[in-house]
C-alpha cells in the first residue's frame, strides 16, 4: 500500500509542475481516505493536463494556419468540454455568463485563420502586434526618476504595468511581509489582482489605445547640462530640479566667455550614488526611503570637465586639470507635494467623478468577462491563452518570471469576442479619463513653486577660482509653461591683488520661459522652446592670465532662444540655441552666436549595464 501511495504522490508531483493545485487534506483522515482523495485529485489533474495538451495542439494549428500552412480538416478537433464542479480548473464555470465559442469551420470548407475570421466578423477588432517592451531594470530606473521629478514619463503605461506585474508575481513566489504575502513558489497569475494590468495589455494588443503604448517624453524641468558660467554651455539659466542619479552632458559653444570650449558635465543625486556605491545595487538603493535618504534626494552635485584643458587638450581624460567647476544643489522650499491640504478638494472631486466611474466600469467588466472564483476568463480565446500563460508562470522560477511573462504577453490573443471588445472600449474610455483626471491635479501640483540654492566653485582657465552662490526659483503656470528665475553673486576665492578690486566679482539675474510642444514625429519626442535672458554686472575689469583687461567693467546683457529636441525613449536630448549679447566679459563688442549640443541621462545606461 505504501508503494502505491508513493507512486501516486510521484505522479501527482509531476502534474503539479504543470499548474495543478492540491487542496489541503484534513490531518485526521485515514490513509485509505487520503489515497482515495489523491486518486480523485490525480484524475482531475490528468483531465486538466489533457485539456492543456489540447489547447497547445489547437494553438499550434492556429499558428500554422496563420503562417499560411494548410492544416488537414481532420486535424481540427473540438475543445474538451468543461467539467462541472471543476472549480480550480482553468475553464469557464457553467454558472457564469459565457461567450459563444468561436465558430468552427466545417470539415469540407476551406480553413480560415481564426484571427482573420474574427476580424472580418467584428470590424472593431484590430490586429496590432504587441509593442516591443524594454527590460524591467531600465523601466524601473526611468519610471522612479520620472516619479521623483514629477516629470513626464519616458516609459509607456504598458511597460510600467507589465513590469509591475512581473514584480507582483515574483513577490507571490518569494513572499513579501510588507505586502502580507507568504511564499508560494507555484504562484502564477490571479485575476482578483491581475485583471487590471491584463486589461491594459489587451488594450495595447488591440492597438487602439496609443496612449498606453507611447512614452510621454516631454520633461522640461531637469537640469542636465552645466551651469551657464561654464565655457561651452547651452544653458543660460539653471533649472530647479536635477537628475536622480547621474546625468551627462557634452555641449559645444559658449555664451558669456570669449572662448569656445567643450564642457562635459556629470550631475548626480547624492542619495542614489551613495547607496549604489555602498554596494546595495543601483535599483535597491533607489527604493530606500529613510528620512535621511529623502533629504539627500533633494541634494545634488556636479562636476564639469573642460576637455580642452590638461596635458592632452581635446581629449577627455577626466583628471583634476580638466575640472572647470563643481557644484552642490539643495531644494529649500518645495510645495510640489500631493499631500498638501490645498489639493484636498481637487482629490475629492476626482474621486467622486472619474475614479468612481472607473471603478464601476472595472467591476462591471469583471462580472461580464471573468470568473474570479475559478480564475478564468469567459472569452474562449482569452481563456485558452491564459491557461498556457498561467501554467508557464507557475512553473517558472522568480528570476524567470520577467522573460516568461514578456514571452506569454506577446502571444496574447487578437481574436477577442464582441463582448470582450465592448468591455475593452468601456475600460479604455474610463481608464483614459481617470489617468487624465489624476494627471491634471498632478500637473497643478507640479506648477507649485520650488526654491533651490546652488553653490558653484568655478575654475576658469588662467584666472583665480570663483565661488558662485545662486538662488533658483521655479514656477509653472498656464497649460504647461515653466518659468525660472536665478539670482547669483560671484566672489573671488582669494582677494585680488589689483588695487581697487574687492572680493565681489559680479552679480547676475536671469530668467527663462519654457514652452513645451506636441510630438513632431520621426522618432522625436516633444520639443521644448525656451526664451531666456540674463543681466550681469562686472564689478571690476576682468582678468586673464593674471593680467587685467582694461575697460571691461560694466554690464553684460545676453538673450537666448533655445530649442531642445528629445529623441524618443532614449534619454537623449539635442539642444539648439541662438544667443546674442551686447558684449562678452573680455571684449566690448556685440556678439551673436549659435550653439548646439547633446545631453544624455546616464541613468539609462547605468540601468542597462548595472555597474553597481
Amino acid at each position: 500500500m505504501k508503494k502505491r501511495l508513493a507512486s501516486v504522490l510521484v505522479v501527482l508531483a509531476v502534474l503539479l509542475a504543470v499548474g495543478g493545485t492540491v487542496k489541503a487534506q484534513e490531518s485526521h483522515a485515514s490513509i485509505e481516505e487520503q489515497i482515495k482523495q489523491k486518486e480523485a485529485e490525480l484524475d482531475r489533474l490528468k483531465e486538466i493536463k489533457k485539456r492543456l495538451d489540447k489547447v497547445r495542439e489547437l494553438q499550434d494549428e492556429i499558428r500554422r494556419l496563420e503562417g499560411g500552412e494548410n492544416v488537414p480538416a481532420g486535424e481540427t478537433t473540438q475543445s474538451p468540454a468543461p467539467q462541472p464542479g471543476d472549480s480550480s480548473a482553468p475553464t469557464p464555470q457553467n454558472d457564469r455568463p459565457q461567450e459563444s465559442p468561436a465558430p468552427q469551420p466545417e470539415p469540407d470548407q476551406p480553413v480560415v485563420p481564426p484571427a482573420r475570421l474574427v476580424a472580418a466578423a467584428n470590424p472593431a477588432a484590430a490586429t496590432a502586434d504587441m509593442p516591443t517592451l524594454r527590460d524591467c531594470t531600465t523601466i524601473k530606473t526611468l519610471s522612479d526618476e520620472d516619479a521623483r521629478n514629477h516629470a513626464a514619463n519616458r516609459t509607456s503605461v504598458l511597460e510600467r504595468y507589465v513590469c509591475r506585474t512581473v514584480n507582483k508575481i515574483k513577490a507571490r513566489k518569494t513572499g513579501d511581509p510588507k505586502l502580507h504575502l507568504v511564499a508560494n513558489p507555484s504562484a502564477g497569475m490571479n485575476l482578483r489582482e491581475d485583471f487590471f494590468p491584463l486589461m491594459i495589455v489587451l488594450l495595447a494588443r488591440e492597438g487602439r489605445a496609443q496612449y498606453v503604448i507611447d512614452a510621454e517624453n516631454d520633461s522640461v524641468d531637469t537640469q542636465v547640462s552645466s551651469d551657464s558660467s561654464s565655457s561651452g554651455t547651452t544653458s543660460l539659466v539653471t533649472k530647479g530640479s536635477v537628475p536622480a542619479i547621474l546625468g551627462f552632458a557634452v555641449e559645444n559653444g559658449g555664451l558669456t566667455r570669449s572662448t569656445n570650449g567643450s564642457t562635459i558635465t556629470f550631475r548626480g543625486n547624492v542619495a542614489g550614488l551613495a547607496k549604489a556605491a555602498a554596494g546595495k545595487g543601483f535599483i535597491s538603493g533607489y527604493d530606500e526611503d529613510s528620512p535621511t535618504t529623502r533629504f539627500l534626494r533633494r541634494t545634488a552635485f556636479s562636476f564639469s570637465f573642460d576637455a580642452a584643458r590638461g596635458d592632452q587638450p581635446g581629449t577627455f581624460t577626466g583628471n583634476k586639470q580638466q575640472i572647470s567647476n563643481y557644484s552642490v544643489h539643495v531644494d529649500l522650499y518645495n510645495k510640489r507635494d500631493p499631500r498638501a491640504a490645498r489639493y484636498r478638494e481637487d482629490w475629492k472631486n476626482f474621486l467622486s467623478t472619474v475614479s468612481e466611474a472607473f471603478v464601476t466600469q472595472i467591476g462591471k467588466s469583471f462580472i461580464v468577462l471573468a470568473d474570479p472564483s475559478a480564475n478564468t476568463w469567459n472569452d474562449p480565446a482569452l481563456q485558452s491563452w491564459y491557461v498556457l500563460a498561467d501554467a508557464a508562470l507557475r512553473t517558472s522560477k522568480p528570476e524567470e518570471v520577467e522573460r516568461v511573462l514578456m514571452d506569454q504577453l506577446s502571444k496574447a490573443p487578437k481574436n477577442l469576442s464582441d463582448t470582450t471588445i465592448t468591455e475593452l472600449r468601456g475600460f479604455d474610455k474610463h481608464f483614459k479619463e481617470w489617468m487624465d483626471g489624476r494627471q491634471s491635479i498632478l500637473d497643478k501640483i507640479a506648477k507649485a513653486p520650488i526654491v533651490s540654492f546652488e553653490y558653484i566653485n568655478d575654475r576658469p582657465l588662467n584666472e583665480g577660482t570663483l565661488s558662485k552662490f545662486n538662488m533658483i526659483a521655479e514656477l509653472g503656470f498656464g497649460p504647461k509653461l515653466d518659468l525660472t528665475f536665478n539670482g547669483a553673486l560671484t566672489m573671488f576665492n582669494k582677494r585680488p591683488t589689483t588695487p581697487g578690486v574687492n572680493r565681489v566679482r559680479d552679480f547676475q539675474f536671469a530668467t527663462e520661459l519654457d514652452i513645451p510642444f506636441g510630438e513632431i514625429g520621426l522618432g522625436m519626442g516633444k520639443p521644448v522652446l525656451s526664451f531666456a535672458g540674463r543681466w550681469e554686472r562686472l564689478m571690476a575689469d576682468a582678468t586673464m592670465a593674471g593680467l587685467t583687461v582694461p575697460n571691461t567693467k560694466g554690464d553684460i546683457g545676453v538673450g537666448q532662444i533655445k530649442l531642445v529636441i528629445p529623441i524618443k525613449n532614449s534619454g537623449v536630448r539635442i539642444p539648439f540655441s541662438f544667443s546674442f549679447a551686447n558684449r562678452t566679459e573680455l571684449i566690448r563688442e556685440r556678439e551673436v552666436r549659435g550653439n548646439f549640443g547633446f545631453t544624455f541621462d546616464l541613468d539609462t545606461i547605468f540601468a542597462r549595464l548595472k555597474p553597481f
Partner: protein
Amino acid sequence: MRVHNGNALDLSGAQGEQITVTVKETTGKPLLVSFTRNGIHTGSLSPGNSSDSFSFQLDNAERDPTLLTMLFTFTGSDDHYDITVKGQGGDTSLFAVAQDFNVPGDSITYTIDIT
C-alpha cells in the same frame, strides 16, 4: 468571515454578516480609494484621512459571491495601501497594494462567497 486558500482576496461569510473594510495609506500620501460592490454600490474614502473604512452586509439576493472591486490611485513613487477586511468574527484578511514603476494606480477584487 473566512479566508480561503491563503488568498486574502478569496473570502466567504454568512448571509447578513456585516463586513468592514479599512484602508490605510502608510506613507502619508492622500487616501485615494474608490470601491464598488457588485458593480452597483459605489463610493470613495475620504482623501483627507490617512485611514478610512466602510461597511456592508452580505446579501445573497443581490449577488453570490459578492464582488468588491477597489481602485487605488497613486500620487508618488512609494504609495502603499494596507487593506484589512473583517467580518463579525472568524478570520481577518490583510492585503497591500503598493506603488511601483510609477503606475498611476491599481485595482483588486475580493470575492466573498455567501454561506
